């Protein structure tokens, strides 16, 4: 159902794109990169004749909501949206829906005011243009929203509908106020150009008191005609829900009053005064007078409300659609309707599908269509349609809106919160997106991870942590890499980084990033390499703190438990050497035996290896030999001291 009229053609600059055609690649979100195509068959390998520098063009869309003013709207609308979702199943649903609808309207209104303010302050012509477009857009949004609210969200009794519509009109169409104000300011208001149009306008909008005020400045106000028209206006019955008047009684009263007006018109009471005659014609609800003043009324829907007020004040919502034909014709028929006019027409005709369709295509953003649809869907207005697409349509629009937010560097978080409320695809969208969110800082990483954790997206958490770990590794931040790898719970990765730490130790003889190593806790057990690394560091710490006894037993445990990588065996033994040579006896005789046993084992494995390696490292051998001898000497001495010591101590008991 591609709509060819609305199909968009985008021009891509650059000569080469014109000459060779375009080629594309997706970026993140609504971001497409376009460059000149090289549609040659891969079998040719001739350099092309093109010598100019190549360009890559970045195309974006749905960025309307990325302006600072709209961002505020997005943020505030989100709060209302969430609150609405939480209040769907309350008992006073009807009231809640109305409340939330009004809340939406108030933030749109605030947004309009923000733009007006920005418009006053802006200096550059480009900005002014942009703001003016935005202003028009949001004013239309507010107009349509409140119209839809009256029709779909509030359930109004007959009679109350028209007064609601009149109020809506008064809020949005203030032309007659302006005219009246201008006329009254002059010295001869009755001669002002806008005097009578102001009176008609006010009466069209049903604002009798104000109309009377304007009339009261007329010098002929005490004449008979004026008295008569004033009387008619004053006696116009007004429907109020709490007046105790039933709708039938009101209709009767209204009929009597209008019959009187018709009578006055017929008997020529106002023949002498054509302006007053027009007023009376309006009161009688004569079609000609409405059609004649279509310019003053401005739009078909203002005409409709005015005409209905004087022809059928007790009209019901569903009958509105029968009153549109006349009004639309007065403005040149369907073909002359502006896009926003036709949205309202569709709304009156209860073609909600069409309303949403047109809202989506007329407004440069998905904000309006998605929020309105969500509200209407919760009001149950979509399901009553022939097609059962209500929730699908709602989700479709919300997904579009969320996607447009996800392309933004800070609004993406709100986008995700919207996706939470898309039951079918929301979670999958989050899964696809969350891993791809560019993470520039540690803080952002924590934010993204928190979002994942709240939604229990384990694979994504692991992947993000691992990518962060890889990046830290790439930037040579071993400590950070280790903590990220621990969070990713990837054993191979942890082992790899522990290995890096040990290599670093072998080369420099010291540990780096101590804070991480000293606080491994139970995560140490993830990989045996890491366990060794952590314990070995603990040994160093104990040694530095002169806790020799504890250090010695830890060292022995490391040696006997065989978690040390083979190449570290000798290093560990050499670490024991200063302990063996210390003044006080640290290793008991039994422990010394064990150390000797370890030494022997290492010796044997070394010899085996040396045989295999065919003695090409004669030099190393010599160094090792020296170390071995030193070690043996140390062990023997310590053993002797320990035996003597233990013997003496034993004697004491």
């Amino acid at each position, binding site marked *: 159902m*591609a709509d060819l009229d609305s199909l968009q053609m985008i021009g891509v*600059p650059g000569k080469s794109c014109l000459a*060779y055609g375009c080629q594309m*690649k997706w*970026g993140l979100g609504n971001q497409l990169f376009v460059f000149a195509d090289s549609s040659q068959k891969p079998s040719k390998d001739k350099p092309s004749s093109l010598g100019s520098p*190549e360009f*890559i*063009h970045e195309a974006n869309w749905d960025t309307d909501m990325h302006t600072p003013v709209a961002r505020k709207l997005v943020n505030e609308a989100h709060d209302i949206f969430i609150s609405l979702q939480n209040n769907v199943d309350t008992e006073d649903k009807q009231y809640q829906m109305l409340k939330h609808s009004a809340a939406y309207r108030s933030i749109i209104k605030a947004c309009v005011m923000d733009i007006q303010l920005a418009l006053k302050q802006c200096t550059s012509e480009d900005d002014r243009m942009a703001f003016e477009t935005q202003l028009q857009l949001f004013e239309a949004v507010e107009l349509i929203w409140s119209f839809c609210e009256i029709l779909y969200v509030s359930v109004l009794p007959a009679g109350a509908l028209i007064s609601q519509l009149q109020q809506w009109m008064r809020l949005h169409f203030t032309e007659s106020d302006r005219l009246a104000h201008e006329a009254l300011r002059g010295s001869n208001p009755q001669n002002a150009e806008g005097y009578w149009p102001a009176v008609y306008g006010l009466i069209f909008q049903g604002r009798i008191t104000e109309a009377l005020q304007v009339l009261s400045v007329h010098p002929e106000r005490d004449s008979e005609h004026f008295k008569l028209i004033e009387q008619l206006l004053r006696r116009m019955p007004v429907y109020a829900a709490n007046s105790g008047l039933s709708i039938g009684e009101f209709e009767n009263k209204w009929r009597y009053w209008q019959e009187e007006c018709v009578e006055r018109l017929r008997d020529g009471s106002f023949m002498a005064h054509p302006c007053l005659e027009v007023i009376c014609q309006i009161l009688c609800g004569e079609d000609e007078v409405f059609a004649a003043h279509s310019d003053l009324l401005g739009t078909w829907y203002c005409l409709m409300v005015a005409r209905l007020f004087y022809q059928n004040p007790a009209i019901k919502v569903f009958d509105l659609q029968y009153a549109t034909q006349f009004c639309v014709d007065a403005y040149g028929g369907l073909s002359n309707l502006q896009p926003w006019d036709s949205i309202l027409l569709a709304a009156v005709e209860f073609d909600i599908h069409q309303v949403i369709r047109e809202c989506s295509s007329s407004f440069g953003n998905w904000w309006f269509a998605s929020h309105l649809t969500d509200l209407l869907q919760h009001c149950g207005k979509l399901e009553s349609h022939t097609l059962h697409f209500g929730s699908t349509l709602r989700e479709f629009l919300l997904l579009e809106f969320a996607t447009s937010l996800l392309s933004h560097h800070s609004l993406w978080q709100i986008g995700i919160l919207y996706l939470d409320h898309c039951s079918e*695809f929301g979670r999958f969208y989050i899964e696809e997106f969350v891993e791809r969110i560019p993470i520039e800082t540690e803080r952002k990483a924590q934010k993204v991870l928190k979002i994942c954790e709240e939604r229990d997206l384990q694979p994504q958490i692991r992947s993000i942590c691992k990518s962060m770990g890889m990046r830290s590794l790439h930037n040579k931040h071993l400590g950070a890499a280790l903590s990220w790898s621990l969070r990713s719970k990837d054993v191979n990765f942890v082992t790899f980084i522990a290995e890096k730490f040990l290599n670093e130790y072998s080369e420099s003889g010291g540990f780096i990033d101590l804070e991480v190593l000293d606080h491994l806790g139970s995560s140490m057990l993830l990989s045996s390499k890491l366990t060794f690394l952590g314990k070995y560091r603990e040994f160093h710490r104990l040694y530095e703190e002169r806790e020799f006894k504890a250090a010695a037993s830890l060292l022995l445990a490391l040696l006997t438990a065989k978690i040390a990588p083979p190449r570290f065996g000798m290093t560990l033994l050499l670490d024991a050497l200063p302990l063996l040579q210390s003044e006080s006896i640290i290793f008991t005789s039994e422990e010394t035996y064990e150390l000797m046993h370890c030494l022997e084992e290492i010796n044997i494995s070394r010899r085996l290896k040396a045989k295999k390696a065919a003695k090409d490292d004669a030099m190393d051998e010599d160094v090792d030999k020296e170390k071995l001898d030193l070690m043996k000497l140390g062990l023997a001495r310590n053993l002797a001291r320990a035996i003597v010591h233990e013997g003496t101590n034993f004697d004491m008991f």
Partner: protein
Amino acid sequence: MFIAKSIQAEHKDLIHDVAYDFHGRRMATCSSDQHVKIWDLVDGEWRCSARYKVHVGSVWRVNWAHPEFGQVIATCSFDRTTAVWEELPGDAGEKGQWVKRGNLVDSRTSVTDVEFAPKHLGLQLATCSADGVVRIYEAPDVMNLSQWTLQHDIPCKLSCSCVSWNPSRVHPPMIAVGSDDNNPSAGGKVHIFEYNDNTSRKWLKAETIMTVTDAVRDVAFSPNLGRSYHLLAIASKNVTIVTLKPLATKKEPSATACTKFEIHQVAQFEDHQSQVWRLSWNVTGSILASSGDDGCVRLWKANYLGNWGCISVLKGDGSAPQQSLTEKSNKSNLGSSAGTSVENNSGGARYLHLGPVAQANHVPWH
């Protein structure tokens, strides 16, 4: 929709492929000039951080590995090789160097496509070549990229032009291979292969899409989004979108049988009216972009009722690009070919609002 900015790529020849890393912050471009360039997005501007010669022939495609495996790209070329490159750690502030980690020389003809497998399959790579062989390579130790082993070679009989992995995590590993063989009588040009892990440990042909008999230039699986079916886009003389719905099989795994699919064509568009060359899905698989010999890029999208339609067309109009990079004075290059010099137009509006649409940045409903 509007063109926000233009980046001068400064390749000496036509660009064949552009690839974005997983986050869209880095870009690799490859060209007939046998070089690859790496670009980084710094403060909203793309800056070239590396340029190096990767092959001795035109470089057809470039592809990024998942960032879990580090900063890794793969390139394939007319010179019959596929290469894997890794960025070496650089000191803070300094850009790293790229070194060749793998040189995969098994093909005897031009390697036409290369694509990394979805990351849940580890570090695997699929290549396809003009002699009709798809090769699957793997780095068994993801921490050591200098070891690549050829795990499988899958004969396709027809000259291959493109390969695409199915990103689904729940389905067995699956690839789609397209052939640019011009002879319609050679049968379907898109083959679906599936890895049988249970018994044979081989890639087996699961399906051939018989409806597409014209030369295929690109195939692309859509992100799965938890659907019960797979969505595959095919670039041939038209853009075709098919769904592959796995048919429920008997519980016991049989030795040879692959999953059978119910193949259903959901959309076919002739709008390009010419050969379609490339396809690309967006992150969530909601929009498909295609480019063809008509010089246009077209965007396709399904509405809420599942009907596909075109939402946008991008076409070169020859106007002067808005450059975001400060153009280096490269007069000799510009002067050498008349009519191709590009006027630098750095002032003026922030955005170029193009096209005859009043609201330039909306994607209309369809």
